[in-house]
């Protein structure tokens, strides 16, 4: 891959706190290596801002290897930038060209209020998870792993759903700010496995109730969530969630 340094015009959303109206600020990012990640580019910018005595841009990040789900940036109209199946930290600057103007916004959703600049409060996801996204386990001896036979197809589908890192890109990409892809992934990973069976019905009812309470929109099946998901979670999970919800409603 050809390595070069590029200069970019950044249009970054600045917002002091959740009361502030917020606005776009323009910055020049100079001499950015195309080998850098998008977050490293922001590190370079922030160092420059600090040296100049300005307030650095606040953004969420943690693992920087694409598995924690923290780096929530809406770049040029795309959640996690233009690459598919990629988090912002795994997005490299070679995705951009010399002199390009890059607009960076926080996730926008009523259920994800902005805390500062590009940092949003995603605790709504935690509360959905806490409403039922778990398996109750009585303490005692660990059960032998082979005691529970699990169909390979179900194990694979559950594993694919469990790849969800709760980053919120599905909500950010959805025109209705719907959290259905997230919730469906969490419901699916348990409903497909025997360990999740005892709480299967109450889980889906409670998680949907919490999802609606948090102020996420309804699913209209545009598929934008699936297209933007860095873990490529399928909307087949949303169909499963709909089935689980209906089945739970009929029998509980």
């Amino acid at each position: 891959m050809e390595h070069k340094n590029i200069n970019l015009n950044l249009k970054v959303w600045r917002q002091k706190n959740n009361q502030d109206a917020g606005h776009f600020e323009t910055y020049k990012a100079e001499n950015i290596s195309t080998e850098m990640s998008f977050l490293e580019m922001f590190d370079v910018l922030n160092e420059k801002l600090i040296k100049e005595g300005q307030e650095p841009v606040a953004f969420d990040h943690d693992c920087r290897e694409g598995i924690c789900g923290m780096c929530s940036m809406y770049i040029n109209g795309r959640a996690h930038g233009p690459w598919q199946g990629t988090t912002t930290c795994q997005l490299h600057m070679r995705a951009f060209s010399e002199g390009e103007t890059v607009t960076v916004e926080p996730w926008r959703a009523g259920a994800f209020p902005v805390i500062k600049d590009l940092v949003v409060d995603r605790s709504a996801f935690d509360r959905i998870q806490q409403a039922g996204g778990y398996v109750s386990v009585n303490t005692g001896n660990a059960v032998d792993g082979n005691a529970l036979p699990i169909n390979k197809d179900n194990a694979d589908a559950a594993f694919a759903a469990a790849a969800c890192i709760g980053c919120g890109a599905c909500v950010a990409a959805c025109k209705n700010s719907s959290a259905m892809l997230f919730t469906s992934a969490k419901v699916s990973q348990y409903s497909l496995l025997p360990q999740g069976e005892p709480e299967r019905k109450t889980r889906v009812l409670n998680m949907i109730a919490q999802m609606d309470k948090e102020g996420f929109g309804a699913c209209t099946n545009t598929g934008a969530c699936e297209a933007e998901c860095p873990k490529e979670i399928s909307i087949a999970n949303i169909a499963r969630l709909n089935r689980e919800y209906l089945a739970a409603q009929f029998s509980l």
Partner: protein
Amino acid sequence: MTWKEYFTSSVGKKLVMAITGLFLISFLIVHAGANSCIFLNDNGETYNAVARFLSHNWIVRFLELGLFVGIFAHIIQGLMLWRQNSAKRPVKYAVNPGNATSKWYSRSMGLLGTLILLFLIIHLKDFFLGTKVAMYAHGDEPHNLFAEMQEEFKELPVVIIYLLGVISLGWHLIHGFSSAFQTLGVNSPKYNNLIRNAGYVYTVIICVLFMLMPIAFYAGWL
């Protein structure tokens, strides 16, 4: 959980849209099928007989009630969902992805539905009203619906309104058909292509038939 809680949840509301949507899809087959009798070109003899049968058979009359319940539920629920969903993002994005992540018609179901509703009002005034007036106000006198169509579709603006109405319906159906199955929980690699293609075939057949009707009258083929 009570049924009220179910149907006021975000998933339940979508189920209402899917079930009423599929019911309306089945209605369109009957509607397009019955209307296609005009193409027999027997000066509307068969068509008027079919229309008289449909408006007098008690099973059809009963289904007609269901149709009105279904269509009102679909419209009201759809408009409410449109309003509620657009309030979920108080601050909009400065840059939008356009068609990079989703199809424009899948994002425009509310708008397309509203266009269909406006068309429907015109359409009911044009043809439904006359049939009912003849039945109830004029002592059930024979009503020549074929002649009424012939008269109506002499006007170019009317023909254009009908064509635009059917085009809106087509885009609405392209997304609505497969979306209804997804909402009902039918999504499997085995059947996804079948459902999507069935939706395309259905939409094309229905729309071509409906568009041919005003065109055929205007062009004087009938």
